């Protein structure tokens, strides 16, 4: 007997449970967008090659385009719509807004979800490909501009907003103080044109 090609599943999204029948082919991305009307999560490439569809699954960032919805049952999913609390922007959202960490805005929800995870991953002591020495004895690397750039590289931005994105992540990670390598890249006094 051919196996069933659809299932009734319960997805837990932003703390809310949704029960829905899904075609097994449906990705978490499409389920969020087309079935739950949570369209903040964007489809850029649908192949895990751009990061626009990044959400948090059990607190970890993941590309929802390669995650089958049926296989996401039982896991806690957080989308961009669930990031702000009680109308208060998440510090990462606020930093992206204030520092213009975007242009067209299409990659932005994925960038923000990714950045939230980057800050947590760094706090957990995870090294990255930018970390000079990954051995535990070397200690946890500071979240420098280079570390942020590498850790955020799974989120492509075609408008070219990376410079502001790095500043925004740095600000959200350490509101009081920008990390080394970003201070001189500050936005500067707005409107500082100089005389010809």
């Amino acid at each position: 007997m051919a196996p069933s090609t659809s299932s009734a599943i319960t997805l837990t999204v932003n703390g809310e449970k949704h029960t829905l029948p899904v075609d097994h082919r449906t990705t978490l991305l499409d389920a969020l967008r087309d079935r739950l009307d949570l369209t903040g999560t964007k489809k850029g490439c649908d192949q895990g090659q751009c990061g626009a569809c990044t959400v948090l699954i059990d607190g970890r960032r993941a590309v929802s385009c390669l995650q089958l919805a049926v296989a996401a049952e039982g896991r806690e999913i957080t989308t961009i719509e669930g990031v702000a609390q009680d109308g208060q922007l998440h510090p990462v959202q606020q930093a992206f807004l204030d520092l213009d960490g975007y242009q067209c805005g299409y990659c932005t929800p994925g960038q923000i979800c990714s950045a939230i995870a980057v800050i947590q991953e760094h706090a957990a002591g995870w090294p990255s490909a930018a970390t000079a020495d990954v051995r535990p004895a070397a200690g946890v690397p500071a979240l420098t501009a280079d570390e942020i750039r590498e850790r955020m590289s799974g989120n492509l931005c075609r408008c070219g907003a990376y410079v502001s994105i790095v500043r925004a992540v740095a600000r959200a990670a350490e509101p009081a103080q920008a990390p080394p390598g970003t201070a001189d890249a500050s936005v500067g006094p707005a409107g500082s044109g100089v005389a010809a």
Partner: protein
Amino acid sequence: MREFGYRRAVDVPGAVALLGADPEARYLGGGTNLVDLMKTGVERPGLLVDVRELPLDRVETTADGGLRIGSTVTNSDLAADPEVRRRYPALAQAVLAGASGQLRNMATVGGNLLQRTRCGYFADPARPCNKRVPGSGCPAITGEHRNHAILGASEHCVAVHPSDMGVALAAFDAVVSYEAADGPGELAFKDFYLPVGESPHRETALPPGALITAVTLPPAPVAATSRYRKVRERASYAFAIGSIAAALDVRDEAVREVRLAFGAVASRPWRARTAERVLTGGPATAEAFAAAADAELAAAEPLPDNGYKVTLMRNLVVALLIELTEEASR
């Protein structure tokens, strides 16, 4: 993408039984490669057996002092593991050099070993490809092959294996454990991938229906002084055009032990045993490193547009071994 059934396995024998002998069934791990291939029509499974919740998600020290890595350990957890970072730093670096943070959170060790080539002809069902459709031909040999194999290829396929992790596993003599319908088994890493030959579509020596359960790293003190270096066409989030895992033990300016493996040069992670033989017992000098690289690369058969990889790998061998020599002398 055709319609398919979905089953979630809860234990290893159950997973193997669910897959059974169905040639259209596939194990689903993180899905980062399989689901993509299903979207492009390269893979068209009729049944997915989800193995992600199997209790194979631990990294454990073995009795002899090695590491046993469960096959559903994610790339992220592997790279973050303190024992991996302390004892096999090149493995952690290799994993961190691959894909993106999001994909590393999803991808599993077992799936990484089984990921398919990124050859553009393989990925496009409208084009011939001996790996995808046996006997249909290999357009890469006369077409676009800038990032194709220089070692161990055949007239039937010149694709390269895309894994970074696998390069480090090759260097450290990993052993792959699996469960098949007739019970458990294991394969040394050198035997895990099959030669390309006339059957590029047959990639591993795993028995049909087998599920990878673990990858074991034997103890290797030399691995504590190891590095992974990857060259690619952008600084991050890209597949290698050449990569190298190296470990070196130098005493009194002589090479006591060395491990070398190359990525993005062959259909599998390429253990550079010829170079290792040439180096072992000899001087730890730039000249000796270059001679060893040349010995390994003497077997290279570059195509018209990928000869640069010979130069690249030679340079990487020398550069990385010099770095490790300097590190050892500190």
